[in-house]
């Protein structure tokens, strides 16, 4: 095999790969303006350093991909109005957000819930009262 053949195979593979990825990232539903602004809030506060979205990010906080299935917008608003101390910290509180930022973040997290993740995260097994860990 020669360098020219290697370069041609590499370029062909790269082209097919980029096209496949481009067609795969299409969204089923368009994102609203609020959801877009919420993504900016997520990024500007560097939430990804502690939390994961789609399983990607820091592991010290919980994954938030489907958080809106577990918490209501009121819960989220209340959380950011009076951010709690985050264990194991004794003093340091969770960063706060303005009400507008919170609304946008909620719209973004609502949107993230609609992304088809092929069954991830898996549904945990329900523990019965007699089960031993």
């Amino acid at each position: 095999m020669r360098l020219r053949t290697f370069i041609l195979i590499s370029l062909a593979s790269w082209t097919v790969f980029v096209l496949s990825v481009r067609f795969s990232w299409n969204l089923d539903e368009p994102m609203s303006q609020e959801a877009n602004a919420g993504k900016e809030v997520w990024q500007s506060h560097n939430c990804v350093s502690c939390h994961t979205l789609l399983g990607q990010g820091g592991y010290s906080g919980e994954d938030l991909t489907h958080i809106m299935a577990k918490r209501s917008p009121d819960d989220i608003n209340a959380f950011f109005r009076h951010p709690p101390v985050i264990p194991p910290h004794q003093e340091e509180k969770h960063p706060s957000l303005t009400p507008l930022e919170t609304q946008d973040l909620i719209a973004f997290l609502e949107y993230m819930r609609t992304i088809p993740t092929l069954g991830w995260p898996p549904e945990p097994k329900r523990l019965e009262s007699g089960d031993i860990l």
Partner: protein
Amino acid sequence: MKALTGKQIARRFMLYAVFLFGSQGIVALLGASALVLPDLPSPISAEYGRAVHLALATFWPVIGMLGMVYYFTAEQLKTDIYSPKLARWQFLIMLVTSLSLLGSLALEIGNGREYLDGLPIFYAGISLGILIEAYNLGRTLWENRQRLTPATGIMAVGVAFLCILLIPNILHYSNPVADEAVKFWVVHLWEEMAFELTTSGFIASFFVATGIANKKDIEKWLYLEATLSVMGGLFGTGHHYYWIGFPSIWLFLGSFFSVIQAIPVFLLANLIYKGFKNHKVLNLKEKLAVWLILSSIFHHLTGATLLGLLMTIPWVNLYTHGTYITSGHAHLALFGTIGFLILAGAYTILSDRESPTPKTYRYGVAGVILLNLGLIGMSLCLLIAGFLQTYLWRVLGLDFMAVSSIIRPYLSLRVLSGSLFTSGALILCTIIIRTWWKTWTVRRKTTG
């Protein structure tokens, strides 16, 4: 004989990479301590501390790799690079932009993208630096096309890919799925494709130069290995696309091409094994570099390839994705595979024709052992923490915060292993920098 200018410029890249690696050892140790010692006073918030750690993890290897490619291209072709002046400018651009990126992150200025946090202008500067090298190498190879070797060819293609993969990451993506997908063109494809090409070229050059392996044997399979690395690396990215909103075909593509990716690793390991069976007696300088290369091969086979393959099985990944298992694997795959090789390259290049004293050699070996013990210890702690997260949180459905309390002892043990790692890193950095200083003063006297 007068040293080639391209080789001399490569020394700057290596010295800067070693400095960044030493800083990484300290930053990482402080970050890991902050995770288990709550409310520890710190000049940088934990969020941006992590961003600095990830930026260092991404950029110290690439700067070292770029220096190695210049050096070993000149070494293989027995000629200078096309434009040493361009290489000097490239170094300056990369020095300014990478330091600005790290400085701005320390000042909490970023864009909130994991691994690629920081203002796009700095990524544009780093891309420009890599582009200059790709051009410089392309012209060097073209002008020496009669003497071209497979090692120089695949190293140049590797550098071109580093640039092609980084440029799309300068852009802003409002689509969160696209944002994640493009991020892995650096996070996965730099490590598992572009660096595979440049490191294969380095290993081939080093083994031919030291006489460990026969040039003909090395070159026979190099293009085949490189082609498998490119195809396997590209579509193997699919294992990062399983659950991010991509169609289910990527479950097949990701797992199938992850197996293909493993083939060149085993081919390389086989080649090295054969080379060592009949190798000549090595001097202390070569021996120290070989210690580092063998460490890389060990982690490449175990932590990166075998553990990586296990994790890419979709039914396993469904449970382990988004836990500390990923972090444990990432440490073994990134530092274990690439980091050790760049340290080997840095030591070889910066020591020039100098050989270490037996005492320095013993310190060097102690540094390599500490790095290995620290890395294995850290990764094991992260893997155990990740396994507990997988079982207790994902499988049994225990509360996330309750599981976080259970795994805290393992994260504390990670800090202890991290201190071994940092000690090893500082020992090796000191040896490499002292060697550079010694050879630099000798050069100044001879040229002055």
